[in-house]
C-alpha cells in the first residue's frame, strides 16, 4: 500500500508527535507514505476565511504536486493526517469541478492544474485522512491482527472534532453526527470506548490565540464530559483539537474553575502503543499532560 503524503505545517511543529507516530504506525503496518516534495501550506482557516479562490489556489498547488508525484510513484491515494488540511484540499478540488472557478484558480498558479478527469482515473487527486485510509483501506481486522499490547481496560473518549466528517457532502466520510470510525479503531486496539456524546463538538479551533476565552470555554466542556463519562484519556485526530485540549488544558481549567488531569493522545500514538512500537516512535514526551498514570493501567511505563 502506497500513499502520497501531505503532512501539513503543524506536523513539523506543534503536532510533531502526530507526525512521528503516524509515520511510525504506517511503516509498521507496511504502508509506504511518500511525502510530497516541496509541499506548501494549504492556507488553513486564515486562507478560506479570506477568500475561497486564494484558499483553493494554495491547495491546488499541492494537489498538482501530488498528481505529478502519484503519476511517477504509482501511489494510489493522497493522504494527510490533519483535518484542517484535509478540508481545504478537498474543498478546493470540490470547487474546481466548476470550470469557471477552475480557470480563475489556474490564473493564480504558475501552471494550470491537471483536470479532474473522469471518475476512477482522476489526475487531480482526492485527499483522504489517515484515519479513513487506515479504517477503510487497510482495514480494522488487519490492524487488530497486528496488536501486540492490547489497550485492555483503558477507557478512552474518542473525540473527532468538527472537521473530519463535515461538511458531509465534501468530506464523504463517516456519520457527521455520530462518527464511529475511531471508536471501532480503538476497539480494534482493545480499548474500551466510552459513549462520548460530544464527539463532534467544536473545541474552539484556531481561536486560541486571538480569543482564548472562546477556546477555553469550549474545551472545558469537552474535558468536563470526558471526565463525567469516566474516560482515562481522550483520543484525537486533529492538531488543533490537541492543542486546545492538551496544551491549553490549564487555560480551560481556569475558565471552568475545575482542574483537569486528562491526557489527550493522538489516535496514532495509541495505535503505536498497541502495536508495540518503541517509545521513540510514540513521542509521548511531547505531550503537555502526561499519560503516564493512565498508561499504567495497561502496564506501560513511561518516563513522565
Amino acid at each position, binding site marked *: 500500500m502506497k500513499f502520497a503524503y501531505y503532512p501539513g*505545517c*503543524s506536523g*513539523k*511543529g*506543534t*503536532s*510533531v508527535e502526530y507526525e512521528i507516530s503516524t509515520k511510525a504506525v504506517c511503516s509498521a503496518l507496511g504502508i509506504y507514505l511518500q511525502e510530497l516534495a*516541496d*509541499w*506548501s*501550506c494549504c*492556507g*488553513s*482557516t*486564515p*486562507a*478560506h*476565511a*479570506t*477568500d*475561497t*479562490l*486564494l484558499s483553493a*489556489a*494554495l491547495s491546488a*498547488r499541492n494537489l498538482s504536486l501530488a498528481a505529478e508525484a502519484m503519476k511517477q510513484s504509482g501511489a494510489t491515494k493522497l493522504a494527510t493526517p490533519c483535518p484542517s488540511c484535509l478540508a481545504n484540499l478537498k474543498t478546493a478540488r470540490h470547487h474546481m469541478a466548476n470550470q469557471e472557478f477552475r480557470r480563475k484558480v489556474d*490564473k*493564480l*498558479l*504558475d501552471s494550470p492544474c491537471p483536470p479532474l478527469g473522469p471518475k476512477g482515473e482522476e489526475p487531480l487527486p482526492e485527499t483522504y485522512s489517515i484515519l479513513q485510509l487506515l479504517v477503510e483501506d487497510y482495514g480494522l481486522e488487519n490492524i487488530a491482527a497486528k496488536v501486540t499490547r492490547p489497550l485492555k481496560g483503558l477507557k478512552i473518549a474518542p473525540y473527532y472534532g*468538527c*472537521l473530519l466528517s*463535515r*461538511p*458531509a457532502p465534501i468530506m464523504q466520510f463517516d456519520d*457527521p*453526527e455520530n462518527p464511529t470510525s475511531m471508536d471501532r479503531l480503538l476497539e480494534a486496539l482493545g480499548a474500551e470506548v466510552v459513549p462520548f456524546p460530544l464527539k*463532534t*463538538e*467544536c473545541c*474552539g*479551533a*484556531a*481561536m*486560541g*490565540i*486571538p*480569543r*482564548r*476565552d*472562546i477556546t477555553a*470555554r*469550549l474545551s472545558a466542556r469537552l474535558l468536563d464530559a470526558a471526565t463525567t463519562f469516566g474516560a482515562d484519556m481522550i483520543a484525537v485526530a486533529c492538531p488543533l483539537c490537541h492543542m486546545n485540549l492538551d*496544551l*491549553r488544558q*490549564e*487555560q480551560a481549567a481556569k475558565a471552568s474553575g475545575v482542574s483537569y488531569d486528562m491526557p489527550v493522545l493522538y489516535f496514532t500514538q495509541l495505535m503505536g502503543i498497541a502495536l508495540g512500537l518503541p517509545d521513540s516512535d510514540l513521542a509521548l*514526551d*511531547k505531550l*503537555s499532560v502526561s499519560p503516564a498514570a493512565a498508561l499504567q493501567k495497561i502496564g506501560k511505563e513511561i518516563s513522565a
Partner: protein
Amino acid sequence: MDSINLRARDEAFIREVEKESGQNISTCYQCGNCTAGCPCGPVYDLQVNQIMRAIQLGDKKTVLEAASPWLCVSCSTCSARCPNDIDVARVMDTVRHIGRREGKTKYVINAFWDSFLQTVRFCGRSYELGIMALFMLRTGRFYTDLDLAPRMLPKKKMPYLPHLIRGKAAVSRIFKRFNDMQQYDD
C-alpha cells in the same frame, strides 16, 4: 433603536452573497437551528440566524458590522443541521470575504489570519513563531500565550527557524497574483 427599513433592501448584496456562497438564502425559514448548535453563539453579538435574516432583508450594514462572522470557528455544525440544507458556514465565510473586500478588518482575528498568511507568503509554509511575533506586533498584545511558552519550547514543538521551501517564490506569486486580481476587480 432604528426600525428596519424594508424599502432599503440591498438586492445587490443579497445576490452577491448568494452567488459567492452558492446558497439560496431565501430558503432560510428562521428555525434557529444554526444558532442553537453554534459553539460560539454565547459570544456573538448577532446570532447566526440573525445574520441570515439580515441578509434576507438586504441589510448589508448590519451584516458587515457584526462581529460574529469574525468569531465563527468554521466548525460547520450549522451546515450539518440546517433543515433547509443551507451551507451556513459557507455563508459566514462569504460574509467575511465581502467584509474583507470592504475593509471591515478591525478584529483581532484579522490580525491573526493576516499574520498567518504573511508567513505562508514568505516561507511557503506557516511559521508558528513568526505568526506569534507578527500577531503581537499587529495587536500590541505581547502577553499572548506567554503562559504556554514554558510548555512548548522545551519540548521543541515550536521550531525557531521557519521551513523555507524551494517553491516559496511560487507560493508568493499566488499571493501577488491574487492581490493584483483583487485590485483589478475593484
